[in-house]
């Protein structure tokens, strides 16, 4: 039943024709495939053949793991929580008195002390906790065509952006919940000289987003150099203080191709995440990027997190070839390597013991 049914449906399969023909008395072809005699490699995993593999894996993984662990430990990292939940926190008042429509931004500055100097480039992240950027309805609430500079999408944002697609019958640019909730605290870093003067640490806001995002995926609408004209007819997202074409003064970092904006638009995987905010480039090889000493973090407190019990923090970190500080990989590699090595030893023992016995003991019996 089944076969005949299939023959009609899958008639295009070559084998059907062959099979059908052979039913009519033709001697089946003596090919290796049809006789299930294709030459085949028949590997047998034995203790003998797996043993070297275990040792090799052990010998490779343990050094890699140690290297990873050491690298991770050498990374300098400091986290400064500025949520302002605690009364002692300088940002407490800003957090308590937050209102959406306040005209004058609330600022607070948090002093901290760097125990060690940061030698190489320092990356400044902002971290949010309990912020579900990976919520399904949040993740899909964007219009990539609009962000790619598509003019029709600019005026007619995707339905996915609802309820942040239109405001007072005007299209929102950039539309959607992700853009609407963009992180808008301004963070500045000051080095407190031993003599007491505050020196602003220069923060570079380029090179924080993926190159392909900045140059291909995100594009401003039209070829207009004048961004405000390009965004004519659209309104800013409801929560934003400035329209999108006023994000930066640099035309290469304004509008949709503003890197802070692009970084925010790459939704985080987990509810606790960090995003790259600024890079502190090393000036010359003689002076450390951030010498040890007192610093002050000045925060323009715009981003409310109290409503969802979130926390905000700033992370200053150096970066190695494996990325940021994460001891997990190193520990995992050392563990797996050791386990493999140990298993290798056990297998060797078993192999040695039983390999000998089976060849000699029985003859004597």
């Amino acid at each position, binding site marked *: 039943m089944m076969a005949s049914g*299939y023959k009609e449906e899958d008639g295009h399969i070559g084998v059907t024709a062959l099979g059908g023909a052979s039913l009519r008395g033709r001697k089946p072809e003596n090919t290796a495939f049809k006789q299930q005699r294709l030459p085949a490699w*028949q590997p047998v995993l034995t203790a003998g053949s797996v043993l070297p593999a275990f040792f090799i894996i052990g010998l490779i993984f343990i050094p890699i793991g140690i290297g990873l662990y050491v690298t991770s430990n050498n990374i300098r990292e400091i986290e400064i929580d500025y949520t302002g939940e605690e009364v002692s926190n300088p940002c407490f008042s800003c957090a308590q008195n937050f209102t959406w429509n306040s005209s004058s931004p609330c600022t607070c500055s948090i002093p901290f002390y760097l125990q060690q100097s940061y030698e190489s480039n320092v990356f400044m992240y902002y971290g949010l906790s309990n912020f579900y950027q990976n919520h399904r309805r949040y993740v899909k609430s964007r219009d990539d065509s609009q962000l790619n500079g598509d003019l029709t999408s600019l005026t007619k944002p995707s339905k996915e952006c609802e309820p942040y697609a239109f405001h007072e019958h005007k299209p929102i640019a950039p539309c959607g919940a992700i853009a609407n909730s963009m992180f808008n605290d301004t963070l500045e870093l000051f080095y407190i000289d031993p003599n007491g003067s505050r020196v602003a640490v220069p923060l570079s806001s380029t090179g924080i987003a993926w190159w392909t995002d900045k140059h291909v995926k995100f594009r401003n609408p039209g070829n207009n150099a004048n961004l405000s004209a390009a965004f004519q007819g659209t309104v800013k997202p409801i929560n934003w203080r400035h329209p999108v074409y006023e994000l930066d003064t640099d035309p290469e970092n304004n509008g949709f191709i503003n890197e802070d904006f692009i970084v925010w638009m790459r939704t985080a995987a987990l509810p606790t995440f960090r995003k790259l905010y600024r890079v502190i480039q090393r000036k010359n090889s003689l002076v450390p990027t951030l010498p040890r000493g007192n610093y002050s973090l000045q925060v323009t407190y715009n981003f409310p997190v109290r409503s969802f019990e979130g926390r905000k923090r700033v992370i200053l970190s150096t970066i190695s070839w494996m990325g940021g500080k994460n001891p997990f990989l190193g520990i995992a590699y050392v563990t797996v390597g050791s386990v493999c090595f140990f298993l290798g030893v056990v297998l060797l023992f078993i192999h040695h013991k039983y390999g000998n016995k089976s060849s000699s003991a029985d003859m004597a019996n």
Partner: protein
Amino acid sequence: MFTDFLSFMVLFNFIIPVSMYVTVEMQKFLGSFFITWDKDFYDNEIKEGALVNTSDLNEELGQVEYVFTDKTGTLTQNNMEFIECCIDGFQYKHQDASSELDGFCVTDGPVSKLHQKAGREKEELFLRALCLCHTVQVKESTEQCPDQVDGMSNEVDCLGIDGALSHPQERRGFIASSPDEIALVKGAMRYGFTFLGLESKSMKILNRSNVVEKYELLHVLNFDPVRRRMSVIVRASSGDTLLFCKGADSSIFPRVRKEEVDRIRLHVERNATDGYRTLCVAYKLLSAEEYTQADAELREARLALQDREEKLMAVYNQVETGMSLIGATAVEDRLQEEAAETMEALQGAGMKVWVLTGDKMETAKSTCYACRLFQKNTELLELTVRTLDDKDRAREDKLHELLLEYHKKAVQDAPPVKAGVTRSWSSASQDYGFIVDGASLSMILNSSPESSNSRYKNLFLQICQNCTAVLCCRMAPLQKAQIVKMVKNSKGSPITLSIGDGANDVSMILEAHVGIGIKGKEGRQAVRNSDYALPKLKHLKKLLLAHGHLYYVRIAHLVQYFFYKNLCFILPQFLYQFFCGYSQQPLYDAAYLTMYNICFTSMPILAYSLLEQHICIEVLLDNATLYREIAKNAMLRWRPFLYWTVLGLFHGLLFFFGVWYLFHNPALQDNGQVFGNWSYGTIVFTVLVFTVTLKLALDTRHWTWINHFVIWGSLAFYVFFSFFWGGIIWPFLRQQRLYFVFANMLSSVSAWLVIILLILLSLLPEILLVVFRKPRGPHSRQSLPVFYLLLSSSPTVTIHFPIPMSSSSLKYSLVSMCSTAAKMLSCLLPWHVLLMTAAPPSTKRTCMKFNAELQHYQTEREREREREGVRGGAGQQCPDGVLFA
């Protein structure tokens, strides 16, 4: 709320492997071609190969527990052949005949020509007896040979087919009620005595010196199954009145002189164990008075109006006394090619073979012996009209009594089910065969509508299931189906297979799970109604042991693998819900979700399920016991399912949390940039695709180029597709989620390291398990598992184990080897099993245990023999060395 529910449904629907259905159907459909293509199934005579009518049952072929086979035309060719005779204690064997035998060639002493052994008169007497004592009619040679009519009732045999005989007068057909008689007449013809026919009460015989002898046929004392003999009374031209009688040994021996019996009994018994149908021939010279008396009594009995049967019987018995035995004949119902080997293989594979035939019991029984379904030491339990007929009681009571008796014997007294060697050993030495006929069966199945009905049925079923072979004779076609149905619906619902060639087998072919038709000369009904049609019975062995076994393993692995791969596919997605506010956010991109089962992981398993040979075909055919390892759905039971499920859970957890730990710091690139949720999903998915594919690679024991192509090709395709999918801003998509995600992932050293780590860690337990499970490993084509059993003058059995075996099949092999040796040599040595070559520890332990139990068994047997006073020192009979391969 409801939309949430629906979203979760959409998100997790992949856990139900819908694509498995498609793959399974493709596997079944494409897989069935390998049966059609198999050139071993091609028969040169009918110029046809196997025919597959359904693709649904390939794997059932690996699960068969009961084989129901027709006899006529399936097991036998229904073609009697005179094999040898024994005259006055001397053996005569036609030289041509020995070459035609398959597998039965017993060469004890040189085959001698006819004229050099017994006295000439005895020979001629014997041959005359063969020519006269029958009810055969001659069919004129001018007519066309009519086709064989079904069954044994009207057997017409054409000598012209044989072709070996060329004399014009020998080109004649014989018609008889039994094919044996034709064989005997033809056998006599071979030795020079030709039966020319019956004309007006006189039988004409052309004797060796080409002289026509005439005999007047006076009386025919008909054959009947109770007497089991027939006689003729003839008057020779010389005037002597002769009675010739032929019949079963049991009915002849008591009626002849003792001293004659001993010389012939040996031959008869040997022939019987060889599976030949034996008949003894006796004669008696009737004096005139004796004849007149017999003649009168016979006439009177024939004319009797009351109790004619009984009176006739009494007269017959009276006449057939005081005869002298001349000799015995051995006739073979030619079996199908390799019928015995096939049946032996099926039994070795743990299948119970039931012969369902319309034939009479004796014929069927001898076929069963010939097919080695019944062995010499098989104890036969008969439930037939003959055993049921008891003058004192009603059949019903007798049936009840017999059933209980047999049940006690075969079921209750059977050794308790324990996983020891003793059980298999002792059950191998105490086989039971069960014989039932149609009448008794209908009594069992449709007796009085009381409650005893089902009780009988249960008893019957239990007895049958404890017997190694069951013979059901005198079956109507519908009764065959009834039997199959009864077994099919019994406890554990075993998989049944029916094989037959004729229209009368159609009902049972349709009833069984798997129906197999033999493409005989008897029309096409069986073939049309079957699931598989084979040209010959012998092909059944390969179909079940090789194709069935492989297909079962393939599909079982396919199903388990599918559940596994979808479990570890969806589990990370499930776990992700705890980290995204239960918002049904998919972990993987939609393209990956869609393509996973269709493109990335479907082809390797399909190729595996079509090409895998975990044990190569030759080994499967040589070791029927391997079939037992997959019996009772061994690969789809709870344990393997749990194993696969645990493996899937382990992998899923590992994938998700491995990457989760990594994403504690999402700054994974050396330029400090961070990864988002799609990168997270892509890393998990990459690990997933590689792991499940490599897991399959680990399971693959038979790497053809197709496997290589498909496995590595799938992985390459995944990488290629990911680059392609993320490399373009797709104009028709609103979302460009994966734009350069994959490429960016590959630019991160940490991502590489975590992918390698997780793949390796997932496969590690698998590799370990494979190593420790080594005894189950594959049997390569080079090291065929040959058992050398060497019986030398020293009482030691040496077994060479080139391959590792699982303990269950090892046990069985040992037992079967030893019992084979015991049968061959008909002696019992104080055996001791010695292992020669490197065997795994488990094998050694089994052998040790086996030795201990064997010793115990032997001492018991020894004691028994002493008690019975059987002569000792049997070992001296044994030849010095026997080597089987």
